[in-house]
């Protein structure tokens, strides 16, 4: 007997299991970027499935703009996003060791404080 739950019946699991997946039933994916406030950075939020930019925006609003504060959403076709090949991940491997590149590594804080202290007493 077929399930009375429409969520189950609308997906023909038997056919899917046999590998009969209609390619047209799969929409392309879009990367969604979320902006909380005007002028703030736009942050990647996730993906949606849609056929056109207009539909992608409508769906993105539902999925990523429904809760919390939103000022704007951007969508871009996943295929328009360029990335490094996954096997080249090693180019970033030693980056965490290069702490000398972080501003915290500059040992000037003591000297600045000393200067400020001096300046203050003089004034």
């Amino acid at each position, binding site marked *: 007997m077929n399930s009375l739950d429409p969520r189950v019946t609308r997906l023909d699991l038997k056919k899917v299991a046999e590998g009969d997946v209609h390619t047209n039933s799969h929409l392309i994916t879009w990367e969604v970027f979320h902006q909380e406030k005007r002028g703030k950075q736009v942050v990647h939020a996730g993906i949606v499935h849609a*056929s*056109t930019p*207009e539909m992608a925006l*409508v*769906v993105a*609003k*539902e*999925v990523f703009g429904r809760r919390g504060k939103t000022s704007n959403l951007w969508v871009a076709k996943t295929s328009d996003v360029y990335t490094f090949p996954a096997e080249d991940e090693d180019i970033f491997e030693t980056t965490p060791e290069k702490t000398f590149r972080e501003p915290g590594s500059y040992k000037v804080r003591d000297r600045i404080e000393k200067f400020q202290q001096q300046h203050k007493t003089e004034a």
Partner: protein
Amino acid sequence: MNTNAIKDLLFKMADDALVIGHRNSEWTGIGPMLEEDLAFSSMAQDKIGHAQALYTILHEVLGERDRDTLAFKRQEGEFKCCQFVEQPIGEYDFSIMRQFLFDNAELLRYDMLTRSSFQQLAQLAKKVRGEIKYHVMHGDAFVRQLGNGTDESHARMQSALNVCWPLALGIFEKSELEGDLIKEGIFAGEDELKKQWLQKVSKVLTEAKLKVPAIDESKIVYGGRKGFHSEFLKPMLDEMCEVVRTDIDAEW
């Protein structure tokens, strides 16, 4: 200020919002895709929020009964919603076409009301306009998409439009009290609204390659604004009010 005329306007707007909100919530869990499940559910919540705000004005400013009583304890004949909103959700093509036609009328109506001389209504209209703007964006996008989709989606949208059209024109059923609203700058009137609506929806329908059916004036489904409803409203109200009716005086 003609209080009865304002009440009449607010009741039809609130009842439209409550009933379409309940209908759209019936898609929760069975939407054709997850995002549409979410979309119909969240638009339904918005609509029920609008109804709540309008019932609150009716109660606090115009001396009507409290909002829960107005929403859950009135008889079918007291409801002023148009018959369009009370129709069952049917298949998704009908629901999306109704959402498109109804929300385009809503947006234009609330737009007009942002300039209303009745302050409380103007404030509310300014506040919720953005929500309805999104509802229209949703409806327009889907109608364009499905109208230009496959032969099947196009045919389904055209037949949904044919079914919806005489019902949708019933949104603009005029009240005999309307003259006062126009004179006092409260609301520009159903005829003006219908004119703007025809212009807007015709544009999107043309983009969707759908044909507006030519129908006889006598086929337009009126009655809802005067409390005459289709056979579908009562069962819907019975379901919506089922819990409240189990203990009518319960405190929530």
